[in-house]
């Protein structure tokens, strides 16, 4: 009788309890990609791919007809070319600086043997709080949670959820994204944190340090999550007026994260990486 009278209330309370248990479990243990979550991702991937493809096709058609086709293509090719050359130049500079440092100490061999898997971006999930994209490769292709994701010329984020045929990439601009970085010119280290639509910020850099607008930011490789020397962005403003010990540094990522179409997942990690250590022990 009691259950019959209060069945609606019991139903409401039960659903809330389930939701709160899920929430507290994920907050406490960072649940990872559970089976149901994998299923949802798996179900969303084809739909997202179809929709994105349709939208892209319509957008492309519109652009082609509205603007001058030849001029636009030439412009795009030139921009690509400049982008590539700039990226190459910065990479050479990074390599040169690294070589100088190494010559002073010991001749060390580069320990990283990078292998990449190319994936297509099939969807964007960019809520106000989270900036993620969905790619069309998953655990069946050898991807694992935590792997770095790149798009020429630089790093865009890392894998946070891996389903069988699709994965979610947490972008650098996500508020919960943290990357160990170093300024290429002065080797000043800091933590790059996502700042949503405003790009990224570098935290914990002392006011005594030499930081200027235009400084190139690369990954430092200290946390063993991201390999050393991956291009990330450029410093666009430095604010020393803020009260406190640290400078406020804003960084614009090299890659336009709103226009990603393809991405490369770095599947081979450095020997010091925890996943590689596990393999070695096995």
């Amino acid at each position: 009788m009691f259950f019959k009278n209060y069945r609606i209330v019991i139903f409401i309370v039960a659903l809330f309890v389930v939701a709160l248990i899920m929430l507290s479990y994920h907050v406490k243990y960072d649940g990872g990609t559970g089976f149901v979550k994998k299923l949802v991702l798996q179900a969303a991937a084809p739909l997202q791919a179809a929709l994105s493809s349709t939208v892209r096709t319509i957008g492309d058609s519109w652009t082609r007809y509205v603007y001058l086709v030849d001029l636009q293509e030439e412009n795009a090719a030139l921009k690509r070319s400049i982008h590539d050359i700039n990226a190459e130049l910065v990479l050479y500079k990074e390599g040169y600086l690294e070589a100088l440092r190494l010559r002073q100490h010991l001749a060390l061999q580069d320990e990283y043997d990078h292998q990449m898997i190319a994936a297509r971006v099939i969807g964007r999930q960019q809520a106000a709080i989270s900036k993620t994209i969905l790619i069309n490769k998953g655990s069946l292709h050898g991807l694992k949670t935590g792997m770095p994701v790149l798009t020429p010329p630089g790093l865009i984020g890392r894998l946070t959820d891996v389903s069988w045929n699709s994965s979610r990439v947490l972008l650098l601009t996500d508020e919960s994204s943290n990357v160990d970085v170093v300024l290429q010119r002065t080797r000043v280290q800091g933590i790059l944190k996502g700042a949503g639509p405003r790009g990224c910020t570098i935290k914990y850099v002392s006011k005594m340090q030499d930081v200027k607008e235009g400084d190139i930011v690369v990954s430092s490789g200290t946390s063993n999550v991201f390999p050393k020397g991956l291009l990330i962005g450029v410093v666009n403003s430095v604010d020393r007026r803020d009260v406190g010990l640290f400078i406020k540094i804003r960084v614009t990522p090299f890659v336009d994260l709103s226009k990603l179409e393809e991405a490369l997942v770095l599947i081979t990690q450095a020997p010091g990486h925890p996943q590689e250590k596990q393999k070695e022990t096995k």
Partner: protein
Amino acid sequence: MIFYLALPFLAVGMVVLQSTVASVLFSGWFLLEASLVLVIYAGFRLDVVRGLLLAFVMGFVFDCLSGSVVGLFTVIYMLIFLCAFYVSLRMVTEKLYLIALFSLACALLEALLVVLFYHLTYDIDLFSSLLPVFLPQALLISILSAGFFHVMRRIEGFFYGKSVQPPQRA
């Protein structure tokens, strides 16, 4: 039965569609949260069991696909559904400005809960996003909500000859 079977697919479709449309229209700055509008609509039109289940599934799918902590939007959507259900006992959906105002309040409540949750749990400061991101998003939701209710009223009129808000609520 069809409702319960179709619900997960409807939820996935809705969340994927809203994120695709939002990324085309707003380049990821705002989210066109049609799922929230649907939850509010459910609060005015469905019974508690079906509406709450819809809110639960919609929130869970949104959590899975948006990358937020699983359970956060599930709880928020259920709370908003209950608010909408409670308000529907005292408000008639013929007045679209009231619907828009109520949706604005719901969207702001959602934003506030999200900001507080991330602040208290992860010490992530999203307060600076309240004005430039969440407020325009809430306004967008209120406009979308008024439009959605208007269209649905027409559709209800077409199929049933009148609005189907339960008489005890109207």
